[in-house]
């Protein structure tokens, strides 16, 4: 009898633990948990300054009151960041088609600011037809980088071939500095919908 009660208790507690640990059976990985957490409650990110590929300065959140669509890259990335770059270009077109070009800004932020100089950012931008207006490439100051990565939940680890492996996504940041949604770089519908939501 005691054993039965104990077992039932264990099942209840264990089930509760797993339910908690997976956000109610919705997230088995840290990446899906990150996206789910943001979707449930937008999270504040510390404001930071950036230097763009044209040498100008910019900020996140956007000082002009635009919604920022932010991805993290490094310019010498041979794989993911290149396809992410192509996705950003297409996303830019979709933003224009949606008539949001003057209320949204696209930003590819380098997480390797010491290596990614203005010239390197510029060449990456040219390779992917970044216009510098709607979409630009930018880098933060190295000393604030850890804070930024931690705020956004981005983890970049050395890939043993001189580059990095990192989680790739488009982060939707509202004008008042809240991270409101995270989507795959190719999920244009989802990103546009999240941008509209953030503009409301």
């Amino acid at each position, binding site marked *: 009898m005691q054993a039965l009660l104990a077992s039932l208790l264990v099942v209840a507690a264990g089930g509760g633990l797993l339910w908690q640990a997976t956000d109610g059976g919705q997230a*088995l990985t840290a990446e899906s948990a990150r996206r789910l957490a943001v979707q449930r409650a937008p999270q504040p990110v510390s404001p930071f300054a950036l230097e763009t590929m044209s040498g100008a300065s910019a900020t996140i959140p956007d000082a002009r009151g635009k919604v920022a669509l932010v991805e993290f890259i490094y310019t010498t990335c041979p794989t993911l960041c290149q396809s992410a770059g192509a996705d950003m270009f297409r996303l830019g077109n979709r933003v224009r088609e949606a008539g949001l070009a003057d209320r949204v800004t696209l930003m590819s932020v380098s997480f390797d600011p010491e290596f990614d100089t203005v010239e390197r950012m510029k060449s990456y931008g040219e390779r992917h037809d970044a216009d510098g207006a709607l979409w630009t490439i930018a880098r933060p100051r190295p000393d604030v980088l850890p804070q930024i990565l931690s705020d956004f939940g981005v983890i970049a680890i050395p890939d043993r071939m001189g580059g990095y492996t990192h989680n790739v996504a488009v982060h939707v940041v509202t004008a008042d500095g809240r991270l409101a949604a995270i989507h795959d770089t190719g999920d244009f519908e989802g990103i546009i919908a999240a941008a509209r939501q953030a503009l409301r």
Partner: protein
Amino acid sequence: MMDNNSAQRLPGPQAGAVKFTMLLAGVVLLLMMVFGFVMRAAQGNLIDLDPAMFYQLLTAHGAGMVGTAGLTGAAILWYFMGRYVPLARGVFWAFLGLFLLGVVLILGAIFIGGYGGAWTFLFPLPANSGGVWGTDAAAAFLLGYVAIGVAFLLLYLEVGRKLIACYGGIGGALAWPLVMGKGTAEDAPPPAVVAAMATTIFNTIGTVVGAAVLASSLVNLYFPEFKVDALLAKNMIYFFGHVFINASIYMAVIAVYEIIPEYTGTPWKTSRVFAVAWSLVLLFVMAVYPHHLLQDTVMPAWSLAMGQIVSYLSGIPLLAVTAFSLIVYLRKANAMRWDLASALLVLGVAGWSVGSVPAIIDGMISVNKVMHNTQWVPGHFHIYLILGEVAMAFGFMMWLIGKPEHKAVGGFNWAAFSAYVLGGTGFTLMFLVSGALSVPRRWAVHAPEWVLQSQIATGFALLVIVGAAMFVLRYLLGLKHSAGR
């Protein structure tokens, strides 16, 4: 007559539970046969059936028949192993309870949830229904399989550990000393034990593999980011499915080894060739599954060649050992006593052997290219199910009810047996003919030129159902009379 015959005719351990299980199985078999009849009638344009409903029936018929074949095989295994080793009674009830839980989940998934992903749950069909059924229905179906898998695992663990303990390990129970020429035939375990040990091993392995692919499919249902490799999943599913349905037949044949000697008067002994054959069966059953993947040209060529070769080799233990021995025993018999039980058991081995012919031929890659997934495939497996495994199960049921006067071949019983054999033969031959005419299997709607074949098959199906219903009725009446014993 054998000296221990009088003891053998008494009910074995847990006869009550086994009799109840067989009654349940008989009723489910009838219901599933009706589903099959409805599908053939729909293909023959005799009735109007919505394709979604057709595929639900298809799913229920497949899962139900495989499950019931497994259930009858397990009951036979349990009953006869109870003669040799002390089995824990609770395990059989747990087995039956979990099995029924699985049945409820599967039926709910199909007829409430609308699941129609076929019994093979081929990845990623359960997760990708095109809007016909929901995730929860697919999950309930898969969980039903998990429950049934756990049921079988429990049963095999109990049988396996007792056989291992009593017969000196796996090797002892498989009569390996005899194989190596170290022991004598008198010291070897009885044929039923050898068969039970081999089945226990390969179906436990099959269940473990099945559990892994079921778990993967379940996770994929709810977390699509967890992709499953379609080819690997297919390999695991066919390994599991092939091993399971084969295990059903290999368990049912235990009834032949145990019951036929009562009729022939000659004990069925474990000979060296018998022991070798069963050790080979153990290997072959697991190595042969790639013959389901002969049209996956991305599979390594050696594995497909192995599928074809082992498919042929698998026929040898069946034909040269079980079938050959049975024929020898029948011929040697000093006036064999024929009744419904012995007739059905012999029919079971005959049907199984006959059905292996089209199976082996379909296992050739060049034939498979034009026969795979045509009605040739249901053709061959319906032979060794209707006229094989299920015939053995009905034979076991008839033997269970005891009194010879209930089983004498004549009148009602002769009519039932004739209807069943004639119906089964005609029904399965129509499948083979349709397969040769390139009629694909699992099509809800048939082209006009195939309709006549389906209509003829529908008639034969009706005959099978009539025969089977008469068996079940005979069993029920027999149970009533034998209840007092």
